[in-house]
């Protein structure tokens, strides 16, 4: 091979000595500075392992002279983020929940904070989109058991609903009409027929007429004569299209027979007041939030 090495005429460079179908390769030397850049990368690499954590030891790696760690950086970033949020949180803390909407920017910040807190504390029952499920109310709609203005929502979250052992919790108890023997099964069927009639799910019938009388004596105290419910006691409106446990015959029968009485924890005990306020803002922002305190027409009718 070596004897085939020759100098290229144009460049005066030696060839590598191989030839492929007449094509030869020049053995052009690398520029010297190229070598220096290679040395520089080695120096850089070594310096890097001195400055940053690198060399593995028995239980941990060397810490590096700058004492940097990804965990430490995360802590710094979290601290910086918290410092950034602190003035907003203290502003929310200082604002009464009913006045939160007066400051759109603050309200929006509260909504976003509430969105995050909702993901952690509420989605287990109410679902990730706050749509609820059977027994757990959908928080997007315009139907509220205990009231949909911001203060009512705040009270529901803070005090909880039917939380045992607390006097200030939202409290009401529908009797288990069937199980406790208050109404025989045929009368329960009549009440179901009445409820399905007022909610326009089935046409008026003789059973519904009988049910109307039974409703007036047994149910109207809470649900109202017009069956439109009463938010003061969490009695649902039975004439609308929204059902917490289902509006079909079977579900209604089961509800009247055994009652339901769903429970929500007192979040005021578990979460700080700011988080409760932010959750309130978030729930109110979902589309069903009401501006004014409970509409008088509705309660007025129910209270009669």
């Amino acid at each position, binding site marked *: 091979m*070596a004897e085939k*090495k*020759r*100098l290229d*005429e*144009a460049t005066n460079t*030696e060839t590598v000595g191989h030839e492929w179908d007449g094509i030869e390769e020049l*053995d*052009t*030397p*690398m*520029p*010297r*500075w*190229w*070598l220096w850049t290679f040395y520089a990368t080695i120096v850089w690499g070594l310096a890097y392992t001195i400055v940053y954590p690198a060399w593995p030891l028995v239980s941990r790696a060397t810490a590096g002279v700058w004492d940097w760690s990804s965990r430490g950086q995360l802590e710094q970033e979290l601290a910086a983020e918290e410092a950034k949020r602190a003035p907003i949180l203290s502003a929310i803390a200082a604002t009464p929940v009913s006045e939160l*909407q007066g400051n*759109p920017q603050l309200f929006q910040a509260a909504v976003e904070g509430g969105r995050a807190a909702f993901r952690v504390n509420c989605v287990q029952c109410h679902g*990730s*989109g*706050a*749509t609820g499920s059977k027994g757990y109310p*959908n928080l*997007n*709609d*315009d*139907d509220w058991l205990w009231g949909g203005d911001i203060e009512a929502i705040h009270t529901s979250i803070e005090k909880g609903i039917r939380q045992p052992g607390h006097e200030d919790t939202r409290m009401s108890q529908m009797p288990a009409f069937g199980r406790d023997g208050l109404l025989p099964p045929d009368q329960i069927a009549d009440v179901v027929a009445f409820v399905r009639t007022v909610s326009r799910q089935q046409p008026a019938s003789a059973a519904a007429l009988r049910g109307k009388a039974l409703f007036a004596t047994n149910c109207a105290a809470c649900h109202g004569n017009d069956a439109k419910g009463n938010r003061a006691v969490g009695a649902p*409106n039975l004439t*609308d*299209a*929204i059902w917490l446990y289902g509006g079909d015959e079977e579900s209604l029968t089961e509800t009247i027979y055994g009652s339901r009485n769903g429970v929500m924890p007192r979040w005021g005990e578990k979460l700080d007041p700011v988080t409760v306020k932010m959750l309130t803002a978030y729930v109110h*922002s979902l*589309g*069903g939030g*009401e*501006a004014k305190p409970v509409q008088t027409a509705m309660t007025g009718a129910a209270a009669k």
Partner: protein
Amino acid sequence: MVSPSDLVGTGKKKSLYARRQPVFPKAIDGPFRRFKWLVMAVTLTIYYVTPWLRWDRGANNPDQAVLVDLANRRFYFGPLEIWPHEFYYVAGLLIMAGIGLFLVTSAVGRAWCGYACPQTVWTDLFQHIERFIDGDRNAQARLAKAPWTLGKIARRALKYGIFLLVSLLTGGAWIFYFADAPTLTRDFLAGDAAYVAYATVGLLTATTFVFGGFMREQVCIYMCPWPRIQTAMMDEKTLIVTYKDWRGEPRARGRRTAELSDIGTPEKLGDCIDCNQCVAVCPTGIDIRNGPQIGCITCALCIDACDSVMAKVGKPRGLIDYATLDDCKAEAAGARPKPVWKTVLRPRTLIYFSLWSGIGLAMLFALGERTRMSISAQHQRNPAYVQLSDGHVRNNFTVKLRNMELRPRTFEVRLEGLPGGTMWTSGQERSAAGTTVRTVVPADTLAKLPIFVAAPGEGEENDTFLFTAVALSGDTREVDQAEASFERPAR
């Protein structure tokens, strides 16, 4: 000429690495040199002055004519403001730059390398500084070989000091394209500028100092991909700087007397007197007479050098000249030289030019037609719909309104094509719902508007309708529409 014995390797172990051969280009004057001066003046002026040009855009808006505002994702170019979603204008410019490269390269070869490339311009600048301090070619070579006396140290310190100053100004000017130049200057000098500003200036100062002061032609020959790409785009009809060997060879230096008998009659001698001026002036240190090569950036200084020598010895100019390989062949065979415009105007360059200008015109048209507002509607998927107590169904949307003008504008959003549909926004009650919502979008902002749409529960599972946005406070009524879908529970 190389003798056959020279072509065989000596068998001696050669080093794997080659030292850089220092280049001390000689000063030269001539038309191409003057053109290079002009290009240098123009490009450096553009580079340094552009960020300081002002453009009035009204209060609270940047008044810098050319500003790449990365933090706020806006690009200002005089009267134009480019939003991120209009980045295709930049893509179009890049495509034009690409085709422009094809055009220029196929017509005049490596003109970019020879005149306009920053590496060339700054290397040229540094070489002038070098000549100013150390003297011309021979003085520089002498000084390089001289021992390190106090005088040499002083000269070197002065030279590198000026290099560093130029580098600092170069690196420093770059950051002004990305922030308000006067403010940034103040902050930078006071030490209040962002960390990235100092890092950028430091990095660009270092690269300018090293690339312009030391690496020079090594960047072009070893580091830059451009020469390889450009070589692939040239053909036999491309103008390149070339030595007309059919006219110059055999070289006549010293041969008129001593080797006359070996060569034959004086008439056979070429025009090249082997004065080496073309090599002396070359900023990359090559010999153009070896033929076209990767080291040639076609700066044409060798043409200036050769022409001045030809004038002195009474021969016609153009022994080294811009010529195509085809023309060289034809001229060697005795044809008359072709005028330059004939070599430049040919189908290939004309096709490139029409493509290039076509894209340019299309972009200008698009720029004239573009609207300064837009609407888009995003359907909230979780939940996709909400059952309302009165039997209606509600869908939630996030409507995004872009106001790309530099003043606040009132937008009216209209709900169209959804039977029985009403809408309202946050802060409103459903009782106040209608088919229009008005909002003021601040200047140069994208506003996100939560929109609730309610419609009767009876109907298609999927109803397509339109959100129409009208900018009310504009000289021209701008309108944009967004299609959206209304979803209902399955029956």
